[in-house]
C-alpha cells in the first residue's frame, strides 16, 4: 500500500496505468459522442411525436418509447453478449477499444435519449409557442429553441452519461476491453497486486471528479437563467 507513493511503483506501473487511463477516456468519450448523435435524434423524434407535441403521432410515440425503455432495462453485461455479432460486423472485432465502444454506445443511447427528452421537456411550452407565433418551422424550433434553450441542462446530462459510462467501461474491461477497469481486475483481483488495483481505482475517482467539475463549470458558464 505504501508502495503506491514510491517512485519505483510509478516507474514500474506508470506507463501501464497511463495507457489504461487514456484507453478509458477514449472509450468513454467516443461512446458518449456516438450515443449523443443517435440519442438526440431519438429524443427529438420522441418529443415532436408526443400526443401534444408539434407533430403528434401518439401510436408511433408509444411504440418508440417502449423500445427505448426496453433498451434501458437491458443489463449492460447481457447487451455486451447479445451484441457480439453486431459488433463484429460493424467494427470487425469484439475486443479492445473498438470492440467495446459499440456495446457501450448502444447501451448509452436509450439512456441519453430519455435524458435529452427530459431536458427538452423543461423548456417552457410558452417559448415554443412564441417561436411558432413568429413563424418558426419545426426544424427551427428544434435547433433554435429546444436545443439552444436546454443547452445547460444537456451539458449537465452529458456529465451524468460520461460518468455512468466510466463505470460501464470498467465492466467492459472485465471482458477484454482494456482500460482502468481491466487493469484493476487483472492485477488486483487475479494477481493480488492490490496497490495496482488501488491506483487504478484512485485514477478512476479522479477521472470522474474531473468530468463532473469540467461539465459543471461549462454548464454554469453558459446558463443565463
Amino acid at each position: 500500500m505504501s508502495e503506491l507513493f514510491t517512485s519505483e511503483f510509478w516507474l514500474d506501473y506508470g506507463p501501464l496505468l497511463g495507457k489504461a487511463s487514456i484507453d478509458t477516456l477514449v472509450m468513454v468519450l467516443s461512446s458518449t459522442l456516438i450515443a449523443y448523435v443517435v440519442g438526440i435524434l431519438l429524443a427529438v423524434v420522441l418529443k415532436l411525436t408526443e400526443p401534444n407535441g408539434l407533430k403528434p403521432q401518439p401510436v408511433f410515440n408509444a411504440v418508440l418509447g417502449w423500445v427505448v425503455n426496453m433498451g434501458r432495462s437491458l443489463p449492460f453485461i447481457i447487451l455486451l453478449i447479445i451484441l457480439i455479432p453486431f459488433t463484429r460486423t460493424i467494427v470487425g472485432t469484439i475486443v479492445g477499444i473498438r470492440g467495446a465502444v459499440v456495446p457501450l454506445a448502444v447501451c448509452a443511447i436509450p439512456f441519453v435519449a430519455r435524458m435529452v427528452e427530459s431536458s427538452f421537456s423543461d423548456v417552457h411550452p410558452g417559448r415554443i409557442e412564441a417561436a411558432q407565433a413568429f413563424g418558426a418551422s419545426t426544424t427551427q424550433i428544434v435547433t433554435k429553441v429546444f436545443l439552444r434553450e436546454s443547452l445547460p441542462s444537456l451539458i449537465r446530462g452529458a456529465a451524468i452519461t460520461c460518468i455512468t459510462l466510466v463505470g460501464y467501461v470498467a465492466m467492459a474491461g472485465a471482458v477484454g476491453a482494456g482500460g482502468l477497469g481491466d487493469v484493476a481486475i487483472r492485477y488486483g483481483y487475479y494477481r493480488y497486486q492490490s496497490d495496482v488495483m488501488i491506483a487504478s481505482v484512485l485514477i478512476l475517482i479522479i477521472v470522474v471528479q474531473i468530468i463532473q467539475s469540467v461539465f459543471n463549470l461549462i454548464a454554469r458558464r453558459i446558463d443565463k437563467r
Partner: protein
Amino acid sequence: MIELLGLGKTYQSKHGSFEALKDINLRIDDGDIYGIIGVSGAGKSTLVRCINLLERPTVGQVLIDGIDVTNYQGRQLLDLRSRIGMIFQDFNLFAQRTVLSNVLFPLEVRHDARSEALKQAHNLLKLVGLDGMEKRYPAQLSGGQQQRVSIARALANRPAYLLCDEATSALDSLTTASILALLREINRTLGVTIVIITHAMSVVEAACNKVAVIDGSRIVETGEVASVFAAPTAQITRQLLGLETVAAVEPIDAGETIAAVEPINAVEPINAGEPIGTPATQAPREAVDGDV
C-alpha cells in the same frame, strides 16, 4: 383588417369535447386597438390564437386583409404568422438569449440579412426604451422591461398586427400603465393594429378604442369603448365594470362556476364580493355614475 366569420372551436379530449368558441363574428379594422375582455376560461386565448392559427378553428373563417387564411399550411402559414406579432402574459422570452438576440429571433427565422436585422433590432429597442440593454439576459430584467423586450421582438418583422394575450396581467398597475402607453404609441406612430386580450376593464379603458366582451365562449357585446362603458347591455359587462357584484369565487379553469348573486344595482360598486377582473379599489367611472 382582421375578420372572424362564424368562428367556432371545439376541443376534443379524453373527457369529451368542449366548445371553447361559439359563432364568433368580429371585425377588427386597421388602426384599431381592439380589446377583448372576459373572465378566465371565457375563450379569449383561444380566440386570439385562432387569428394567427396557433389554434385551428373547427368552423368558420379567419380573413386577414380580406384573404381567407383559415386553411393556410406550410410555408404560407409560417409567412402569415411572421406578419403578425404576438406578446404573452409571461413574456416567453428565450432565457438563454440576450435581449438583442431575442429581438433578432423573428428575423433570424426568416433569414433576414444580419446587418439589416441588427439595425432594425437596435431601432426597436430604442423605441421601447431599452437602449443600452442589448447584452443583458431576460433574468436580469424586471417584468416591465421583459415585456418591452417581447414587444420589440414582436415588432421585429414590421407586422401590421400585434396580438397581446393578457400582456399586462403579470405586471403591477404602474408598469401596466406604461406598457399600455407604449402600445398606444406603437399604434399611433407605426400604425400597427393591436388586439388586446384582458380580464381587466381598466386595461380596455386605458388603451382601447373598441371592445368585445366574451362570455361562455360567445361574444355577448361589442362596440366603441365609450358607448359600451356608458351603456353596457350584457350582465357580464356590468359585472366586469363593477356595477354588479358576483359571489366572491374566483372562477378557476377547472370548471368551477361563478355563482352570480341577485344583481345589485349600486351607485358605487359594493366590494363585499370582488368584482371579477377589476381591482377592488378601482373607482367607478363617471359615465356610470350618471347612468344609474
